[in-house]
């Protein structure tokens, strides 16, 4: 993310964690209905929103429910009658929502959900990784992964812009590291006047449930039509890429911040690139500086957009590199390459006709910290293994008992 000094909208500097940054974006988007079931590390989002409603800062309905399954169902109903809606969750909560995730996207409702990502039970872990998010990649939700509190704020605004676009009408997820971001206070800029945000988010007409003009949503469909309806989702998800780029341009114009589907740091002349996602991108950048001081031509990449997958952006950035190292924070058990983003990256580069040496690492599982030294040592390990790295599948970094030669 790159910040321009001047922006159209006047902004104020605040210190917030990513949970609160999400809540402020929801407030500024003038959301009508919120339903959520608190779960750590997401709790701060809905706590702050409840406070805002109680203080009269936000005129919204907070629907209290008994589970995440109901939380998502409740906002599906509210969205179906035309409301702008929001929910947030993590970990088991997201898993409990799973069947409803498909219903939301299948009904083409522009919901927005924040996810403070977290490991999954069992064994119980309240700490961060991306297992929860990676499990919902095939539910047809547009998915952003933010790396700063600023980006969480901006991405939630952007998510409403994209989801509510009549060409798209798909729900969106804005994900960020549980704890490493959800509980980290840092500076960000938010608009002084909420009206300026609302100008970016005009209410647009769409099909809604209305007793005067009855329609049916989510009815049963026979085999002769189901596939065509689902194919429309395939098309909408592809089209979403273009609409996201338009929204990026509007964010830049209004808020002065430049976002790309794949962010890069010192990538231009790099022989070795390291691709990751979420908050550890900052740590990776520091590691890149360390490695460059040792004389290695290393650069960093960050996947900001997970669905739709920005294959061409990745191709353009990776084109001149010899080695690509992908650092995942989730495990696809039994997959040929167990890192989900590594797997996807290899498919995308193959599609684009690009075949660099690739190494897949998995790190940070269950809240284990990933430091600058970890990144540096991963790069060195990848260079040492060369072509052999991918034959291993994914390298499980720092796991006691796992050895790779």
């Amino acid at each position, binding site marked *: 993310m790159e910040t321009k000094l001047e922006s159209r909208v006047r902004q104020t*500097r605040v210190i917030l964690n990513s949970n609160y940054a999400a809540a402020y974006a929801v407030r500024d988007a003038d959301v009508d209905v919120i339903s959520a079931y608190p779960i750590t590390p997401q709790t701060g989002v809905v706590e702050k929103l409840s406070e805002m409603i109680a203080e009269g800062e936000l005129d919204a309905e907070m629907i209290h429910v008994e589970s995440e399954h109901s939380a998502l169902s409740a906002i599906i109903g509210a969205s179906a009658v035309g409301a702008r809606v929001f929910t947030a969750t993590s970990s088991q909560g997201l898993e409990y929502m799973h069947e409803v995730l498909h219903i939301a996207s299948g009904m083409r409702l522009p919901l927005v959900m924040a996810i403070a990502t977290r490991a999954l039970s069992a064994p119980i872990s309240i700490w961060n990784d991306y297992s929860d998010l990676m499990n919902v990649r095939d539910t047809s939700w547009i998915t952003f992964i933010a790396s700063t509190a600023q980006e969480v704020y901006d991405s939630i605004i952007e998510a409403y812009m994209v989801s509510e676009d009549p060409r798209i009408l798909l729900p969106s997820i804005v994900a960020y590291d549980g704890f490493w971001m959800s509980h980290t206070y*840092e500076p960000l800029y938010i608009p002084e006047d909420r009206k300026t945000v609302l100008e970016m988010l005009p209410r647009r007409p769409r099909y809604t449930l209305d007793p005067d003009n009855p329609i049916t949503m989510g009815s049963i469909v026979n085999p002769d039509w189901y596939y065509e309806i689902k194919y429309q989702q395939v098309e909408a998800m592809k089209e979403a890429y273009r609409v996201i780029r338009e929204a990026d341009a509007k964010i830049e114009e209004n808020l002065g911040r430049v976002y790309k589907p794949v962010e890069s740091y010192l990538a231009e002349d790099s022989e070795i690139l390291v691709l990751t996602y979420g*908050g550890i991108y900052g740590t990776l950048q520091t590691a890149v500086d360390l490695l460059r001081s040792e004389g290695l031509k290393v650069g960093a990449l960050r996947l900001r957009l997970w669905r739709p997958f920005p294959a061409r952006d990745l191709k353009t950035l990776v084109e001149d590199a010899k080695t690509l190292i992908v650092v995942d924070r989730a495990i696809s058990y039994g997959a040929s390459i167990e890192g989900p983003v590594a797997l996807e990256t290899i498919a995308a580069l193959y599609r684009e006709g690009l075949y660099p040496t690739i190494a897949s690492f998995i790190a940070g599982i269950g*809240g284990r910290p990933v430091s*600058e030294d970890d990144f540096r040592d991963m790069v060195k390990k990848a260079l040492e293994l060369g072509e052999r790295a991918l034959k291993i599948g994914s390298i499980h970094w720092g796991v006691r008992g796992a050895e790779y030669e």
Partner: protein
Amino acid sequence: MLNIGETIEIRFHGRGGQGAVTASIILAEAAGIEGLYSQAFPEFGPERRGAPVKAYTRISKEPIRTRAPISSPDVVVVLDPSLQPSIYLQGLKSKGLVIINSKRDARSIAQELGVERVVAIDATGIALRNMGVPIVNVAMLGALVRVLEYISLDSVAKAALKILFNIKWEDNLELLLKTPSIGEKILGNIRAMVEAYKSAEVLMT
């Protein structure tokens, strides 16, 4: 005084319920008021009253990129002297500073811990006198800013009001102390901070 240089890394040590995490957030907010970049986060874990707690604050003139926990701090702030020194001295830089809540003098603490730089402050006594409860986090911040360049006591007071009581105070500290209508509980915190700032014993070689 401690010059911030590139980035200063501060680690707070306390026990669950003493406000170490809140102190780390107030400091980050105060740095923000000064126009600096800052970052504050706790060592995450099940929250249990009385268990050892760690929290981190980074302050810099440049944007802070890393999110790794602080393993070699410039400063450790020890809210509870009953913690094992092996916990709070872990990774402390060779010229690192220990700011500790203690009735003892700085020199004897330095000798016992084998460190050169100590700020000693009887924060528990100060908190009890000013607030009637042994909550020392704001007092400890008073002792900290005594040796921290670029962050004024004024900014810490403003940050504490914002984080602890959700009050936006635009005026200076002097006027705040002369505003009884703001409430005794709030003023108690601020008075404790000022007293700690003034009475901290600084040993910097």
